[in-house]
């Protein structure tokens, strides 16, 4: 119980409260601005977190994470452009409501549903995570290796269109992580006599370059195209009236809130999924269960509420595998995991026994971030709509300067700034070539864990590889990892073959005889 009181003291300290507030505010603004993503927001603000003692920085990142998911709905409703992929489903009914003059009602419902989904998933995290951590406490080196491989295998799910390129990206991340001192023997690897490389390539500049600098370069490209289009960038024209949902609206959407929150939380716990999947499934289910399915696509209040509750519920769900097993579910949680590691918190089952105060701080911090998101959403929506009007010509230089300053601030060296820029330029070209950035980060983060546990396991068994099939936990995770790796490749081909076979059978007159 004293751990809980200590955690309450941390979270409700003035500095932590201010940082959570600032993080949530920054998150909402980043989410509301089309072109700025959740990952970019966390990557941009992550260097700042190292300047704070204790958990302040982590609480700030939790605020950014929750705020940015919600912020995406603002631009989705007002300008028909989802601020984040998770808000793509919100456009379907949010924008028609805005066109009908109900922008305030839509924004109010999306704010309430985002807060509900976020709080619901925080409760689920508090209930489920400690139980799962208890089960996972007895894991040994081969099991941790299998967990690492399982974490790496989700690369196939977070890759954009090409699984092979996603895996190549993962290998790039794994290779970057090998540069520096060997984790077991402390021998030099790929350092070429450079003092900078001896400590390994700093993770933060790479992260900022891949997620923020490359996006800023994309922003410059999009600006060029927009300037030559007849209408240019979209502007907010809708008038915002009443924001708080009426009692009648709330009663009607409450079952949708509950259903979508359960869906979002459950999907969040599955590594490799994310807010976009949760929001679309929540939307489809809301339509299926609705008494007014004909309203969907024309401004249904359930159609706005379902995707937002589902997407925001993913936050708490995704923290379950992250905190208990040390497996990031997507790019955003992979970046968060990096922040935890830099703060000296090694995620996994031992976190719950070795750092109970920090665990409780994260739990309470998640509740607080979601509450702040709701309060800020209801009170500051008019300000956020003004922020959306900031032209790209001002926004991009700000991002680029923040990238440089953030990278510099981690180790106070300009080398990190150059590393960030080179990573960003590579990231930009890789994005053009259909690569995703998340696999690289997942590789960098999980590579050392997988390698050290693989070598530790083989040292334990004197080089006998059968150690990985003797433990049921290890064998299970390796099997799941293999399935995760190969299903996205083999699955569509099996489906196509099955469809073809079904088509041939249907076309065969003798089939039915």
């Amino acid at each position, binding site marked *: 119980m004293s751990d809980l009181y200590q955690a309450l003291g941390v979270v409700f300290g003035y500095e932590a409260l201010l940082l959570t507030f600032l993080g949530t505010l920054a998150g909402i603004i980043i989410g509301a601005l089309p072109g700025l993503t959740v990952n970019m927001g966390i990557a941009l603000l992550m260097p700042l977190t190292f300047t704070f003692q204790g958990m302040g920085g982590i609480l700030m990142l939790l605020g950014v994470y929750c705020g940015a998911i919600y912020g995406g709905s603002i631009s989705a409703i007002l300008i028909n452009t989802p601020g984040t992929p998770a808000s793509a489903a919100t456009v379907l009914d949010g924008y028609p409501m805005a066109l009908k003059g109900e922008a305030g009602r839509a924004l109010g419902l999306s704010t309430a549903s985002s807060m509900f989904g976020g709080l619901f998933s925080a409760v689920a995290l508090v209930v489920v995570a400690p139980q799962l951590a208890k089960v996972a406490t007895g894991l040994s080196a081969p099991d941790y290796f299998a967990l690492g491989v399982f974490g790496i295998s989700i690369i196939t799910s977070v890759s954009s269109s090409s699984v*092979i390129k996603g*895996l*190549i990206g993962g*290998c790039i991340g794994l290779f970057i992580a090998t540069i520096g001192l060997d984790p077991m*023997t402390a021998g030099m*690897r790929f350092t070429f006599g450079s003092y900078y490389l001896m400590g390994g390539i700093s993770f933060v500049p790479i992260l900022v370059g891949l997620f923020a600098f490359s996006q800023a370069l994309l922003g410059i490209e999009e*600006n*060029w195209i927009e300037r030559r289009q007849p209408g240019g960038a979209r502007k907010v024209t809708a008038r915002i009236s009443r924001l708080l949902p009426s009692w009648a609206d709330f009663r009607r959407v409450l079952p949708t809130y509950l259903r979508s929150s359960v869906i979002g939380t459950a999907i969040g716990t599955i590594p490799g999924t994310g807010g976009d999947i949760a929001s679309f499934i929540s939307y489809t289910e809301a339509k299926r269960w609705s008494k007014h399915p004909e309203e969907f696509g024309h401004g249904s209040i359930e159609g706005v509420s379902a995707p937002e509750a589902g997407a925001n519920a993913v936050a708490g769900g995704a923290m379950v595998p992250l905190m208990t097993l040390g497996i990031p579910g997507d790019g955003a949680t992979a970046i968060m995991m990096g922040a935890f590691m830099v703060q000296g918190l090694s995620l996994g089952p031992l976190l719950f026994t070795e750092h109970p105060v920090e665990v409780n701080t994260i739990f309470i911090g998640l509740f607080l971030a979601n509450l702040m998101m709701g309060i800020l959403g209801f009170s500051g929506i008019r300000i956020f709509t003004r922020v959306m009007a900031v032209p790209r010509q001002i926004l991009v230089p700000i991002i680029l300067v923040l990238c440089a300053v953030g990278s510099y601030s981690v180790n106070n060296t300009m080398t990190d700034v150059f590393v960030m*820029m080179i990573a960003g330029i590579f990231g930009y070209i890789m994005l053009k070539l259909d690569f995703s950035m998340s696999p690289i980060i997942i590789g960098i983060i999980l590579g050392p864990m997988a390698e050290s546990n693989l*070598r530790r396991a083989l040292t334990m068994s004197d080089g006998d590889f059968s150690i990985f099939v003797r433990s049921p936990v290890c064998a299970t995770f390796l099997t799941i990892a293999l399935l995760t790796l190969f299903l996205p490749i083999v699955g569509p081909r099996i489906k196509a073959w099955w469809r073809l076979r079904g088509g041939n059978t249907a076309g065969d007159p003798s089939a039915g005889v």
Partner: protein
Amino acid sequence: MRHYNIMVAGLSILMGGAIFWLSRDLTGFSETGVPGEAFWPSMIAGLFILLGLLQLAEVVFFPSVNAGRTVDLHSAPVRTSYVAALVALVFATIMTWLGFIIGAVLFIPAIMLLMGERRPLLIVGATVAIVAVIWFVFVNFFNITLPVAVFFE
């Protein structure tokens, strides 16, 4: 897309080969069969080569997978981004010698001009505001030292 995918495959195989070559002096396995420093990098190198070959096979045997997809690395908007990246590298170099303030005061207007902004008042106003806010927040609020000009060190 086809020739870019072949290039990606080639680079992946080349990367694998390079890692194998760079690991040649590291220990693979000890006498007792315990893996050494080269073990994990060699696995990654093998994966790079395997994935490169798979990418090549996809291009040759399953051309329909990438049919209709295009890669834009040379159009005017992309070239603008390259110029911006170059300007950013120059900014980093200036920042190394002349510090953050002088670097940012030159960099922000350069990017704004590159993005088509021509209103001098907005350019000057935005530059001063961005530099002032970032300096104030980072130095006073976060206690972060920003690079200063070598003459002031």
